[in-house]
């Protein structure tokens, strides 16, 4: 295992210590931090490794939220509902990926973007099942106290993050990761050396969808109420891309750090610039990417030290 992968696991272990120090607000932030990191790490499999700019994250997040939400409403236990959302998302995404990933570049980006819109309309129209535009109320978990519930959902989301990180590490060192790197660099040459590109791309798309979907399921149970415009929000597709770019495309550690940094910026900006928060946040992101185009992971302490010595 490489040094950066160990650092990633240490970072995630450190996040788990949060309930020891923080109150309800910290736990809420921690849960969102884990959620963001799951989205960004999952996006990285298709966007960072295979080089396909996917905007489908929102589609699978919303799918997971609704699949788990509806099942919870029918009295399924949380773990079973999330497991169903995860597995069905993998199958559906792999099948869809085999079709969608025939498109390349901008065409793929647009097609994946429309996926969330299609699902949103389906949910809007299946009123009997999903409550349509009125949204879906999800029964509260056991009547435990506020702190107990906050801690529970924090650890649930943290568990998904850990699983996603392990997936990212395993994929990175495996034949699948090698194949995706080949596809990113030269897809034509990849198939010429005997690589079944469709199979590997579909597997990557499925993997990236299923963890997002699990996070969506836990999110739904956590907030007790979801509606289509919330969980299919296009921002769920855009934010992971920004996080991955900020952290450093392709590196799981960088991407996870990018997610935490993004959340930090979001919180600080939100609190201080109530009126113009999106503007300030956007400006910060632009500045960051201008001066650090390869993300946080391009900042190496040894390189900085060398630069300091040469000055």
């Amino acid at each position, binding site marked *: 295992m490489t040094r950066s992968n160990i650092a990633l696991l240490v970072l995630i272990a450190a996040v788990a210590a949060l309930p020891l120090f923080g109150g309800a607000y910290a736990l809420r932030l921690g849960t969102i931090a884990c959620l963001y990191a799951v989205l960004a790490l999952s996006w990285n499999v298709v966007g960072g490794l295979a080089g396909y700019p996917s905007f489908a994250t929102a589609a699978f997040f919303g799918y997971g939220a609704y699949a788990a939400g509806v099942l919870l409403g029918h009295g399924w236990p949380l773990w079973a509902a999330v497991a169903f959302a995860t597995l069905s998302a993998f199958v559906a995404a792999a099948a869809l990926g085999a079709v969608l990933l025939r498109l390349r570049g901008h065409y793929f980006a647009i097609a994946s973007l429309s996926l969330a819109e299609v699902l949103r309309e389906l949910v809007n129209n299946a009123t009997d099942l999903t409550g349509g535009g009125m949204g879906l109320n999800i029964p509260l978990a056991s009547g435990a106290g506020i702190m107990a519930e906050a801690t529970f959902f924090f650890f649930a989301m943290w568990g998904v993050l850990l699983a996603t990180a392990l997936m990212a590490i395993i994929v990175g060192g495996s034949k699948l990761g*090698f194949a995706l790197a*080949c596809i990113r660099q030269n897809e034509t*040459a990849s*198939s010429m050396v005997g690589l079944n590109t469709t199979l590997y791309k579909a597997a990557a798309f499925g993997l990236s969808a299923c963890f997002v979907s699990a996070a969506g399921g836990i999110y739904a149970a956590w907030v007790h109420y979801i509606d289509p415009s919330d969980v299919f929000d296009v921002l769920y597709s855009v934010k992971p891309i920004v996080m991955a770019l900020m952290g450093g495309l392709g590196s799981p550690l960088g991407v996870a750090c990018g997610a935490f940094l993004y959340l930090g910026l979001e919180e600080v900006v939100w609190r201080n610039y109530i009126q113009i928060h999106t503007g300030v946040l956007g400006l910060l992101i632009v500045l960051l990417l201008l001066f650090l185009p390869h993300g946080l992971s391009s900042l190496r302490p040894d390189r900085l030290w060398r630069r300091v010595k040469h000055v």
Partner: protein
Amino acid sequence: MSELLRLERVSRHFSGLQALRDVTLSVARGEVLGLIGPNGAGKTTLVNTICGVTPANSGTVTFDGTDITRIKTYQAARLGLSRTFQIVQPFSEFTALDNVAAAALFSQPGASLKGAREAARAHLAFVGLEAQALQPAATLTLAMRKRLELAKALAMKPKLLFLDEVNAGLNSAEVERATRLIHELAAGGITIVMIEHLMKVVLNVCTRIVVLHNGTLIADGAPREVISNPAVVEAYLGQKYAQRNAGHG
């Protein structure tokens, strides 16, 4: 000699352009076939059609007894059809070693990444790139990248190897070195189809030559015979070449 590859009245068109017209061709095991012809004659299209990149519109392609007319590119690669590209196509961020390892890994089902890297070392050594094994492919010179292409093709354990202008853009010392490598491969028993413009190399290496012109095969035979064929002189070699070589014929 038994037959390895057979094309039966293969045609391929791109909208209005007829790139290949009723090409019938047979390649025997162990032979080194030269495929020559003017630019735009359809040489690369012929290779692409056999390898499944642009499948034939009509006709059949048979390889080693199986019909591969509608085969997918990656399946062709696994059957033992491998090729180099006229314009080199490395995985530019990978090291030379990983480039070759990719070819070894995906062309043989069940290969492991570790085993593929080991096999890659041997192939790099064969083409004389062992010193550059850990260098990113993007930093290699053109001649080295051409040899890297060859190592990639060899790592796929080919039964039939297409060399698409492996000598284009090389200086004479580099050409000599590449020619030596091709000789060694042929001696090792790999069937080779080479597209080549350098007639010196073609005459030096090939056991048989076929000539494509406007998508049609216009000649097929022993090298000396083909270059003195009036139709070939007319379409490709030119009068000057014919006169210069008349004495050697």
